């Protein structure tokens, strides 16, 4: 009934429970108790499985298999899992005194070793047919292994690449990855030309690549990211009160970043003579004032027909506790357009001087906005 393995596991379960009680009484630590009890539950579960499955011990209830199973007929094949398991334990220890990340890696290694070890032992006892045993192992293990390995591989590639890209300078990134791409292409070309390449060679090349990536990534991660440049927006400009004639970074290639809505409330045009006019369907083509509803995001298209780069500005007046709030477009090249979404909190009569669209640098360009 109780196999050797299950005795060990049951003993460990009992021990964990005892330790939990002792720890709980002496140290009063709930976390420790919780951990130990969890361990007890886990060990008990494994013990149960162990008993139920006969500890992968064929001879327990199937004496025939004891003689015909592959495991009974030849020495077990080599296995990497004892080493991995021990390495995992070592890593857990190291991690406990250094950094928790190492512990996590150790725990993962132990978990992998336990599962793989059990799978291997189980499959070797499966039948007398070794090929068949390999098959059932693959059938059970591959759906588990493949996604995990693929995820790990993808994570390594993504992390490695991204660390390197973030660490190198802008130009350096372009050069580095052009070179890498060329190398990859070259190797691929070589392999295509030499079709009979051994899988060992291929594996070696891939391994070198992965190691290089990991090493590069690690170095890059240690050296830290380069200084990132945050592109300024017109909102930031407005906040600093710099909606003037001076070009700033927010104005770079402004007309290329226009989000031209299919549908605007009004089109405001700056003419070459320095006058600002508005066109709204239903009115004559160009009017000198525009009525826009309150508390509503109005999309106004600014069209610059003058000879200079200009921007459209609107002063929304004080809002709540804050001081006067301004909105502006980026500097718009001659002949280009840009959209300004403007929301009026207050009616015009509540704002001193009313709402007005203006264009810095063109004093004559004033357009009255009526907010009822």
């Amino acid at each position, binding site marked *: 009934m109780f196999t050797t393995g299950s005795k060990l596991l049951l003993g460990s379960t009992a021990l964990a429970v005892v330790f939990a009680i002792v720890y709980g009484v002496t140290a009063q630590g709930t976390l420790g108790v919780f951990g130990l009890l969890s361990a007890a539950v886990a060990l008990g579960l494994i013990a149960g*499985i162990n008993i*139920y*499955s*006969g500890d*992968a011990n*064929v001879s327990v209830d*199937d*004496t*025939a*298999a004891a*003689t*015909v*199973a592959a495991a009974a*007929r030849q020495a077990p094949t080599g296995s990497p899992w004892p080493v991995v398991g021990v390495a995992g334990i070592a890593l857990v220890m190291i991690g406990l005194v250094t950094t928790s990340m190492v512990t996590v890696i150790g725990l993962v290694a132990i978990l992998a070793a336990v599962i793989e070890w059990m799978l291997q032992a*189980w499959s070797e*006892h*499966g*039948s*007398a*047919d070794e*090929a*068949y045993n390999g*098959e*059932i192992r693959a*059938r*059970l293990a591959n*759906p*588990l292994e493949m996604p995990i390995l693929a995820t790990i591989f993808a994570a390594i590639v993504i992390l490695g690449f991204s660390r390197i890209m973030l660490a190198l300078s802008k130009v350096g990134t372009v050069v580095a990855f052009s070179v890498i791409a060329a190398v990859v292409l070259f190797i691929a070309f070589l392999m295509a030309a030499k079709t009979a390449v051994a899988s060992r060679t291929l594996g070696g090349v891939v391994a070198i690549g992965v190691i290089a990536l990991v090493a590069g990534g690690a170095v890059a991660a240690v050296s830290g990211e380069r200084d990132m440049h945050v592109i300024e927006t017109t909102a930031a400009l407005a906040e600093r009160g710099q909606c003037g004639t001076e070009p700033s970074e927010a104005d770079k290639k402004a007309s290329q970043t226009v*989000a031209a*809505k*299919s*549908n605007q409330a009004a089109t405001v045009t700056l003419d070459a003579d320095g006058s600002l006019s508005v066109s709204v369907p239903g009115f004559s083509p160009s009017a000198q004032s525009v009525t826009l509803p309150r508390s509503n*995001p109005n999309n106004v298209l600014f069209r610059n027909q003058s000879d200079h780069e200009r921007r459209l500005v609107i002063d929304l007046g004080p809002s709540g506790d804050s001081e006067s709030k301004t909105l502006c477009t980026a500097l718009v090249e001659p002949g280009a357009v840009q959209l300004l*979404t403007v929301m009026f909190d207050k009616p015009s009569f509540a704002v001193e001087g009313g709402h007005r669209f203006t264009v810095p640098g063109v004093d004559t360009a004033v357009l009255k906005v009526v907010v009822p």
Partner: protein
Amino acid sequence: MAIIERPTETLVPATATPAYVTPDSGLGVFRRPVQSEGWKSWLFTVDHKKLGIMYGVTAMAFFVIGGIEAMLIRAQLAGPDGTILSADKYNQMFTMHATTMVFLFVMPMAAAFANYMVPLQVGARDVAFPRINAFGFWAFLFGGIFINTSWILGGAADGGWFMYAPNSSVTFSPTNGIDFWVLGLLITGIASQTGAINLIVTALNMRAPGMSLMRMPIFTWMILVVQFLLVFAIPVITVALVLLMFQRQFDATFFSVEFGADPLLWQHLFWIFGHPEVYILVLPAFGIVSEVLPVFSKKPLFGYPFVVFSGAAIGFVGWGVWAHHMFASGLGPVSVAVFSVATMAIAVPTGVKIINWTLTMWGGKLRFTTAMLFSVGLIIQFTIGGLSGVTHSVAPSDTQQTDTYYIVAHFHYVLFGGAILGIFSGLYYWWPKVFGKLLNETLGKGNFWLMIIGMNLTFGPMHIIGLQGQPRRMYRWTEARAGEGFFNLGFWNLVSSIGTLILAIGVLLFFINVWVSHRKGTVASPLDPWDARSLEWLTSNPPKEHNFDRLPTVHALDEVFHRKYEDVGTDGHHEYKQVATTEELLAIEEANADAHIHMPSPSYWPIVLAFSLPILAYGVIYNLVLMVVGAAILVLGMYGWALEPSTAPETDFDQSPPSGGSELEVASHG
């Protein structure tokens, strides 16, 4: 059952070299179930016939739920300022009525007929992917239940089945109703998509020898068109639903105007799905009618190729008319004009069908069974719906009619008069095939007339109500806008509400009929009660588990008719003489039965996999931990599915011959 299962080999003497034996089944826990009787046989079945019946029963249950919702709506609107439902409940009610009827009744009911009949009609033993078929059913069932649990978890979705943004965002609908709706439809969408691919492969790859595409029964053809529509339409609604889920769950801004989004995006996505959906709903019914009319007219379907190609044409043009649901949404005159004309164009293939049905009856020998009555009723009622459809393909006219009760009248004539009458026609026609018992014809005729009178009283007045300017989706209407005289809205609203009662009694008669036919020991149906024409009648009633004793070879459209009758006329004169009865035909089949018939084994995993989906969905709404549980079940299900052996071992089966009356030895695996 043990986790480890080893081959049970006889003990080999220690002295001899043991033989290497490869076992025929390895992993015990993943053994396949074998029950063919009892509740387990239904839970784990992959038989297309059992699944078809379960689809039908579930859909009918949802039909009742949707019907009760409809009756509550009409009760609320029977008089001015109705107080039966609160505004909030009313909004939930009409949202769920449409959702239930479209996604949980008509679509799965079509799936029920398709699942049951397509393999039989093409002479196959099952669908192409039996386990996926089972998964589809369970996903639909769990998805449907999931949506409806929102009633007791804070209120159902209240945005209308069209769920226009931004009214569907959290700000405007703070309860979880819309989350349930979104996730539930994602689940039923998975069901539809898997079912569609399954049926396409079945219809294209599993046809009996000799059945060219142009000899395929018309019902299967229409189902094939519908499945192609589904394959392309479901991804569109899935995208829209995922966007909405992100909008609601993760504060995405796909439909937030304040971040520069355009709410019309949702409308385009929804209607690119939504319009083909209309044909998804109605084409299966067209297929049923196109089967029933020839049988009871004793004539082949008039212009079979025209009906086939008009169905396919609807399948194509149906993708180019979605914006006619949006004529009032400010598209601009060019788009409106284009979609207006395209909408008129799609009326042509629909008209072709009406003409062909009429001409099928023309010169025939018509027997008015209940199934036939429903089919003739469909022609008339659908024509009314189609013609009112033409009046709003004219975009300016539509801007007066859209979102009023006139539209409600229109699409109920199309969907009730089209889809549902077709479904009832199919129920009466195929009932003896599926259950081996005839439904009572007297009750059936009562059923028909009450439904026809009921639907015309319910939906007919809505034309008037709509043209008098009563909008849809209002939880109450007011006397102040009701007008006076013949067109008084109060009178017609009351008529409409009374109509629902008659309609409900009509539907109730159907259930009574079923009860009578199954409880009162009505005699078993003859093998071929209707003198039918297509391949599903070349087997017993109900069909054997393996459908056909030998796979039939097809020589003509209407194969069974041509096996039964021979043209003995001469000189261009036709005279048909019966040369065989169906019983004789079946006896021939049984005498030449295939020696080994391979049927798929049942499986645990479809239901497990499907069960994980609502758990995941509850997790999305309530707690991410629940999602982990759902994901674990999902992974387990996929794992189990992938590891399941392709057959159950022979020894697991009951050794007695399977039911169906055949003396054959049927090896139920392969």
